[in-house]
């Protein structure tokens, strides 16, 4: 077996276990809520329409957006609970994923159960009343058994949807088979992406077939078939969950990472440093940019690396640029005051947003600065990463230079570089520490008006770890020690096409380069 595949498969038990735990819990919750609602809807025509309309509406929300929406909602609830009850709960990870997926599973169960109950022959219902059944007895003894095959068909659909959508719970911090897909897409590790897709498809297929067995059982009124399907489901679930049992010793620290290679590498670096200090750490990767800071402030992750300019514009909502040292100094004071977040210090390099072009193209057009770019922008196409165009930095740059492109498109970073290389776009929003700038022969355009703030990579520590001496001792040696060249090399070792390293391997290489 290729080393990449075996490295990938080594992660399978843990990812699969969480995926199964999440899907099974979401389906169970979805069933527990939908079944009574469906019974109610089958009794009242007035309720039926709004209820199915609501479930259909939820179905039209993209599942990723639904998952994303639950995070701020739960965060607000948790803050409220902390205020009222004295302790909150984690708004990250299992809970938002569970709630969003449960909502998502409701429509097929709701629709099929209602249709199944309404579809019971009127003569049979009259007979049930005629022999003296109460409405509850009629439901349990006649309507539900007769509607069971239709209900099971709905549960089957819901199960397949839930297992598929559960891959999207990775960005809200819940481990799932989606971890393969998100990080694989980011680091262009297609083996990971394929393993993630294949595993989730196989899981969905297996669940569908076993539920199909139960469905056939209730349809043919064969107890043996129904039991076989149910036993298969139970055994499969228990088997998949085994890796979670026993290994539940709570890690001392949770290390956060956003969704790009440098973040994976730095999280692995912090993991290693903590391990060297004798502490257990667990990574929570692929967090959205805004999610990461709020998760830290809420104490759901203990430490992660962010960038001064990002915090300056997005958290402090500052639009000015007083210079690198001033930004870092004010940021350190303000984050402490506002959220109790500790800025341990800068790692020593910047990963700035920078607009970049292919060298040959820039030379041909005579563009070296953003001011040059602005003059020719109306003829040019611009590619940005997924968030850049909605960030204040972009608005500041566009306003400062009067930038107006012919077209602008958003890409997942990997594909953004591909689009530039292929000539689909003329300029992109790059990161200055990205190894691909040198490797792809790109030029970074200068910013004579200082419209883009500095982006020092800073280590942030959550309020509840502020006084943790062990954590500080483990991480302080990193402060000021990482030159941008070393970071670029590490990033490129993960992003390149040939001889790729995993982020963990790249972190080890970086440590060696730094002399740890």
């Amino acid at each position, binding site marked *: 077996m290729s080393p990449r595949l075996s490295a990938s498969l080594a992660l399978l038990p843990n990812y699969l276990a969480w995926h199964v735990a999440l899907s099974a819990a979401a389906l169970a919750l979805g069933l527990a809520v939908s079944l009574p609602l469906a019974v109610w809807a089958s009794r009242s025509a007035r309720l039926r329409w709004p209820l199915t309309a609501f479930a259909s509406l939820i179905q039209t929300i993209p599942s990723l957006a639904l998952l994303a929406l639950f995070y701020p909602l739960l965060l607000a609830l948790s803050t409220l609970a902390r205020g009222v009850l004295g302790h909150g709960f984690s708004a990250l990870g299992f809970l938002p994923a569970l709630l969003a997926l449960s909502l998502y599973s409701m429509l097929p169960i709701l629709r099929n159960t209602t249709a199944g109950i309404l579809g019971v*022959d*009127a*003569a*049979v*219902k*009259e*007979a*049930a*009343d*005629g*022999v*003296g*059944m*109460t409405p509850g*007895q009629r439901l349990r*003894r*006649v309507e539900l*058994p*007769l509607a069971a095959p239709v209900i099971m068909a709905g549960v089957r659909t819901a199960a397949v949807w839930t297992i598929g959508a559960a891959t999207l719970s990775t960005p809200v911090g819940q481990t799932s088979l989606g971890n393969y897909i998100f990080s694989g897409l980011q680091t262009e590790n297609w083996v990971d992406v394929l393993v993630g897709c294949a595993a989730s498809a196989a899981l969905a297929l297996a669940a569908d077939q076993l539920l199909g067995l139960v469905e056939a059982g209730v349809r043919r*009124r064969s107890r043996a078939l129904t039991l076989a399907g149910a036993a298969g489901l139970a055994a499969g679930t228990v088997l998949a969950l085994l890796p979670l049992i026993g290994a539940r010793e709570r890690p001392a620290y949770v290390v956060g990472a956003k969704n790009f290679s440098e973040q994976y590498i730095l999280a692995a670096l912090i993991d290693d440093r903590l391990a060297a200090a004798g502490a257990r750490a667990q990574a929570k990767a692929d967090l959205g940019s805004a999610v990461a800071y709020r998760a830290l402030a809420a104490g759901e992750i203990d430490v992660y690396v962010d960038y001064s300019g990002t915090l300056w514009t997005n958290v402090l909502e500052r639009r000015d640029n007083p210079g690198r040292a001033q930004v870092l100094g004010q940021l350190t004071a303000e984050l402490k005051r506002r959220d109790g977040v500790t800025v341990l210090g800068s790692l020593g390099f910047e990963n700035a947003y920078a607009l970049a072009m292919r060298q040959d193209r820039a030379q041909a057009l005579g563009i070296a600065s953003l001011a040059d770019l602005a003059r020719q922008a109306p003829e040019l196409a611009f590619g940005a990463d997924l968030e850049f165009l909605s960030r204040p930095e972009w608005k500041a740059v566009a306003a400062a230079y009067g930038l107006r492109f012919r077209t602008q498109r958003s890409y997942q970073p990997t594909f953004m570089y591909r689009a530039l290389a292929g000539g689909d776009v003329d300029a992109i929003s790059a990161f200055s520490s990205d190894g691909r700038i040198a490797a792809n022969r790109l030029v970074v355009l200068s910013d004579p008006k200082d419209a883009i703030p500095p982006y020092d990579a800073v280590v942030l520590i959550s309020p509840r770890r502020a006084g943790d001496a062990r954590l500080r001792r483990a991480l302080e040696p990193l402060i000021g020690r990482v030159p941008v060249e070393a970071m670029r090399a590490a990033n490129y070792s993960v992003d390149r096409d040939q001889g790729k390293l995993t982020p963990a391997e790249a972190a080890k290489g970086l440590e060696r380069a730094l002399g740890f």
Partner: protein
Amino acid sequence: MAEPLIELEDVEKRYGEHRALAGVSLRVDAGEFVALVGGSGSGKTTLLKTINRLAAPGAGRVRVAGEDTGAIAAPVLRRKIGYVFQEIGLFPHLGVAENIAITPRLLGWDRGRIAARVAELMDLVDLPRAMGERPPAALSGGQRQRVGVARALAAQPAMVLMDEPFGALDPLTRDALGADYRALHDRLGLTTLMVTHDMAEAVLLADRIVVLGEGRILADGAPAEVLATTSDPRVRDLLEAPRRQAARLQARLGGGPA
């Protein structure tokens, strides 16, 4: 005079604008076999259903065995009254024996008593006991209605309501089943109210015929007596229908031995 088993007093029932029952009063004594007849929309089925509250009366009072039905929980009332209807409504997910056993189970009888009762009933309605495990779908129409009758009698009710019970059966099965039921009625001392649109069936099976039209009782009495005394042309028309039909049959087929 004995207290009537079923008593309706000025019962009214509306379905929206339509007046299905326009003030009906009726007394049925224990042991009677009453046929409710009348054209479509005359209110005969609605009248039957007000007795076991499958239709709740809009006004008036219904008493069963002296008790106001409005004061008893409907399921409790229905477990004391057998109910048989044209569509039969056997539970397709239960076997024949389980279908018959349903009301005793609702009443919480013990297993042994239920098993004995089911066996007794299958003999009574002339079904082979081996049929008990079969699903209703595996039965013929006549067998199914025999199960329907057995189910209605399972909890030993004093009275049975029948809504066109044999209407969907072929003529031979229908004849046989009608006669068999009448024998059961006599043997078990039942009180039966049967809705039918078949006048011959009404005349042949019932002791007493109640004719309904537009939600009112037009005539009430023994078949011959009603025919002799009525002045209502609608009632006469209805009651003479079997005889007219027989005469036409005679004319077409030629006079054979009757």
